[in-house]
């Protein structure tokens, strides 16, 4: 067993930063959000999508990585899992020589937390190893969309820019992607990618999601299709109180009433909106349903059922009042035992475990299996194979592009390599120390080794936590179990740019959902909004999608 270096930040886990900090936006990023708008707008060029053979021509060749074999290979669309002991002494190099040439490179990336100083030991070490010379322009992840909008409207765009998909929803940014970022085809298409072995090992589905306006413009951060939002529960408290894990929507509600005690400051759950769509089998976005009709997410009865159930939870007073007011951090209420169930993405399993290990040794977090509303198996819909890209500005010199690709290649090094270890943990002795064969970050490591490099690209999705290998196993197994119930929507895996005139059509639903489940809007308001959506462009957008699917074939 050679898998070595440790990682807490695999592809899907990057969204975790959102899960704790930018709740609303992450809901859009996660595949299981109730409402997944499908991209945005470009009135001049690049409307629609590129799929099938036309897309295959644009894609880089796929050369799987052979560095480390996962203990739990990907199954049912899950991430792979590495669960065995790592041998830090036997780390391999994924790329024999430095690809960077040291040309200066400016990169703008979202960052959740306090950005490390320019020229800190971590940045220096990674630059030295990759042969790059990066100047970071880290921006607060919570307001990244606004920052990016302004930067793209200026005439000084950084050489490389990280673009998350959730900021492309209902605004004019998708057109900016086509206008401002270059076609990477000349550097990556076909066999050309083989110069960058780690990028070549990124799955083709993720690359396909990186085609914008008929050209390969993004370097993807791959995400497993089975990365559903997880309903976490406090295993330790469940065991102590003798609760059994609910198996249907009604069971959940009655358990929640039982478990809530306002007097003791304990509430059953936080806002369950994210996961309710999965429970009720609501397909996100555009899909040709079983009856052969093409529908959008908000038009399905399951959408309203999911909302109504969530509202019942709020009405019953089992949701923490701070979640109702949407203040503070639900993750903290969960670890404090003020709520017993909360939704987040797969990464919270590890981050909460690690965070509580010393302060609260009894703390146990588990994800409950998503149940179907009536108690049977759920119907889950696959999430997009890539939701974050790094892009290179149009007009960048060849040297700049090659250095940017070198940086991305370094960041995409697979588990078990020296590169991965350096990106995720920094330098031994400075950023981490090894205790019992397990790397542990030092204070300097915790403040410098945060998500800047990891945003550029990532290897095929995996879970690996050398300090808590059991968690990696549980995460992978949960995804495999749930992945068995997974379906794909008709638009799955396509990066679709909608015509600009429909850009703001769905923009009011996010707020409407928030307001409805909290009792600040009536069901009739939601229904009225749905019919307004239809009449003010939704039906026309349906025709547009029908044509698109006829032309490109269905994604499922």
């Amino acid at each position: 067993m050679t898998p070595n270096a440790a990682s807490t930040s695999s592809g899907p886990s990057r969204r975790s930063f959102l899960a704790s900090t930018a709740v609303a936006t992450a809901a859009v990023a996660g595949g299981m959000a109730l409402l997944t708008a499908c991209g945005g707008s470009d009135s001049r060029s690049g409307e629609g999508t590129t799929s099938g053979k036309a897309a295959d021509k644009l894609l880089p060749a796929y050369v799987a990585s052979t560095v480390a074999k996962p203990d739990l290979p990907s199954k049912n669309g899950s991430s792979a899992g590495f669960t065995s002991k790592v041998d830090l002494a036997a780390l391999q190099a994924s790329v024999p020589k430095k690809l960077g040439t040291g040309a200066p490179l400016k990169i703008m990336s979202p960052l959740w937390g306090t950005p490390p100083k320019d020229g800190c030991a971590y940045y220096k070490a990674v630059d030295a190893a990759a042969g790059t010379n990066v100047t970071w322009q880290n921006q607060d992840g919570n307001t990244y969309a606004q920052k990016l909008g302004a930067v793209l409207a200026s005439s000084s765009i950084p050489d490389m820019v990280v673009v998350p998909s959730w900021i492309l929803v209902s605004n004019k940014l998708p057109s900016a992607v086509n206008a401002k970022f270059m076609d990477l085809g000349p550097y990556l298409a076909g066999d050309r990618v083989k110069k960058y072995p780690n990028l070549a090992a990124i799955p083709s589905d993720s690359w396909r999601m990186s085609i914008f306006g008929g050209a390969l413009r993004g370097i993807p951060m791959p995400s497993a299709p089975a990365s559903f939002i997880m309903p976490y529960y406090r295993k330790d408290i469940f065991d102590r109180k003798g609760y059994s894990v609910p198996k249907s929507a009604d069971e959940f509600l009655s358990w929640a009433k039982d478990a809530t005690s306002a007097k003791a400051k304990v509430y059953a759950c936080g806002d369950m909106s994210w996961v309710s769509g999965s429970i009720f089998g609501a397909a996100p976005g555009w899909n040709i349903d079983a009856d052969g009709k093409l529908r959008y997410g908000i038009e399905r009865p399951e959408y309203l059922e999911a909302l109504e159930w969530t509202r019942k939870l709020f009405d019953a007073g089992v949701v923490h009042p701070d979640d109702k007011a949407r203040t503070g951090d639900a993750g903290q209420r969960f670890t404090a035992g003020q709520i017993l169930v909360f939704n987040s993405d797969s990464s919270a399993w590890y981050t909460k475990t690690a965070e509580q290990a010393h302060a609260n040794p009894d703390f146990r977090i588990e994800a409950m299996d998503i149940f179907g509303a009536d108690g049977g198996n759920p119907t889950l819909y696959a999430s997009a194979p890539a939701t974050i890209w790094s892009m290179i500005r149009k007009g960048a010199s060849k040297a700049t592009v090659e250095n940017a690709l070198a940086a991305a290649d370094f960041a995409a090094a697979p588990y078990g390599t020296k590169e991965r270890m350096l990106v995720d943990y920094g330098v031994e002795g400075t950023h981490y120390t090894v205790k019992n064969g397990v790397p542990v970050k030092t204070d300097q490591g915790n403040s410098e080794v945060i998500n800047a490099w990891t945003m550029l690209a990532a290897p095929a999705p995996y879970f690996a936590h050398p300090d808590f290998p059991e968690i990696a196993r549980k995460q992978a197994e949960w995804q495999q179990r749930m992945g068995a119930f997974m379906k794909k929507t008709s638009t799955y895996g396509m990066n679709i740019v909608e015509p600009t005139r429909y850009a703001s059509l769905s923009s009011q639903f996010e707020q409407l959902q928030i307001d409805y489940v909290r009792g600040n809007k009536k069901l009739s308001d939601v229904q009225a909004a749905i019919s307004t959506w239809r009449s003010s462009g939704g039906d026309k957008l349906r025709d547009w999608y029908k044509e698109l699917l006829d032309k490109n074939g269905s994604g499922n």
Partner: protein
Amino acid sequence: MSLTARSRPDGARPPGAVEEPTVAAATAGTKVRAPRRTSEAGKVPWRIRLRRDRALILMTLPVIVLLLLFNYVPLLGNIVAFQDYDPYVSSNGVTAILHSPWVGVEQFSRMLDDPLFWDAAKNTLVLFVLQLVFFFPIPIALALLINSVIRPRVRAVAQAIMYLPHFFSWVLVVTVFQQVLGGAGIVAQTLENHGWSGFDLMTNSSLFKYLVIAEAVWKDAGWGIIVFLAALAAVSTDLYEAAAMDGAGRWRRMWHVTLPALRPVVALLLVLRVGDALSVGFEQFLLQRDAVGAGASEVLDTYVWNMGIKSGDFSYAAAVGLAKGLIGVCLVLGANKFAHLLGEQGVYQK
């Protein structure tokens, strides 16, 4: 009261000018400039005036440049309200204005047809009226109260405590309120222990308007007393002594000396406030939007932010912002006129 009534500053001064010191403090600029304009401006050539005032002009120049650069030049950007502006259509956002299609007043007619805009406008006006009724008088009352405290130490401490919340950010204020008045806050917890459950003021959309007033009072009422205290400090103690000699009690002194002294300042601030009527706050509402729903919390400023910055519909947001600005100008003019009718100076004079 009739003692203080004047129609114009250069008009005949009433005898026994009770308010003299205050007027001097509040409108010193006008008083100095007014005679010059009438007596000298016509005669002294422009060039000579320039040379004479060189030092003053040089001193104001940096501020004027900054004002032009950051307040007036960006105003030109309002032109996108008549376009379907796409900032990414050209190499930068400014030249993109040249390439975006013109749509005339379409954005404005869209605004008039938009029920969400009218909701925001209604909320804004309701909040303005409530702020005027419940918030505006409080700093005056506090200033009178502070003014009546004689011991300087007590006074300084009281003032410091009252100013302090002003320096809290809205995030902090809302969090503090959530911890006290929220569903899991101190009040709710105390009531829960006494058998009353379900108290949650922070997510009650019908009481939201009063909640935001309460928050604003807590945060800014103390700060608002500064200008009134300055006005009160300018009242000559002779007046009080004279009034006391004439046998005026505490209340009569307040009625005939203190309040008349405050009147011009109150009128000035009122005019300014009315002119700013459509700006009732921003962060405060954005932060509590989800707690009470957009229906109760959306005001014009958050609406502009949501449509423009968040949804990228810059042209529409600019149109709404422009309309708001125009209405604001009309309100300033109207309020100023009204102040003149009442015999006050208002913000400016012709």
